[in-house]
């Protein structure tokens, strides 16, 4: 199925560029959180923001091209986000139970 603009009637609504701008701003805010926070819990929350901003852009393009593909992609991103949160929180709990400091800068060594 090739993306085509089936309808050529425009409606009064929000242009695609507004959605992309919102998506970009949220992505940058999430990235700033990931780069500057030290608590791994807050780090994961910022990663969630980044994933959601990508979803806004995906669903926006889905509406622009009048196909469902972008929405399917957004749903798959949500599944990956859920898996990432489960593993991330499992790691945080494991670190906490070993009585290490919850600081991503302190957790810089890998050892099995």
């Amino acid at each position, binding site marked *: 199925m090739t993306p085509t603009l089936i309808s050529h009637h425009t409606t009064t609504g929000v242009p695609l560029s*507004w959605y992309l701008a919102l998506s*970009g701003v949220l992505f940058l805010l999430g990235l700033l959180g990931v780069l500057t926070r030290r608590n791994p819990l807050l780090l994961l929350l910022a990663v969630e*923001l980044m994933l959601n901003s990508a979803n806004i852009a995906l*669903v926006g393009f889905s*509406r622009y091209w009048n196909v469902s593909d972008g*929405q399917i992609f957004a749903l798959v991103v949500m599944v990956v986000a859920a898996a990432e*949160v*489960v593993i991330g929180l499992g790691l945080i709990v494991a670190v906490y139970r070993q009585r290490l400091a919850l600081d991503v800068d302190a957790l810089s060594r890998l050892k099995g």
Partner: protein
Amino acid sequence: MGERIFFAIAAFGAIASAVTVITVRNPFRAAVALIVALLSIAVVFLLQRAPFVAMIQVIVYAGAIVVLFLFVIAYLGDHPPTLGPDPLARYQVLAWLAIIGLGIEGFLALANSHLPGIDANPYEVSDIGSPTAIGNAFISTFSVAFEATSLVLLVAAIGAVLLARRAVLGERGR
């Protein structure tokens, strides 16, 4: 016009709560601010004619995932170990430079885009966001992706169980 007003309110709510998420120190408050951000983004999804994605956003994201966050925050306790002064504080300027650079780059890309109708009123859409359309796409065009997501969830579940087992073994079964 009405849609643009709704978009402005939702976008303001999303950006304001995103700023709260990345600035507030208390993880509990950050998680609650994230709920507000996710609900605002669900409103944006509704404006984009994606009611099913908006519904999943509220149920799975704002519901299940953030509740998991709140559960872990409650489990770890309200008092996180006090962190000393940030040893990497002098590198924060690099983070800001990266953000500003990326922001300028994104603005230029958006301003110089030649996609037809990117700044104009959107086209009418057919039925692309209903549960019927999404379900049909999942079982016909995207059946492989659908099966792959089940594999991803299975691997994540096994990984979580193994992590918990290692943590318990590390404390000699306490």
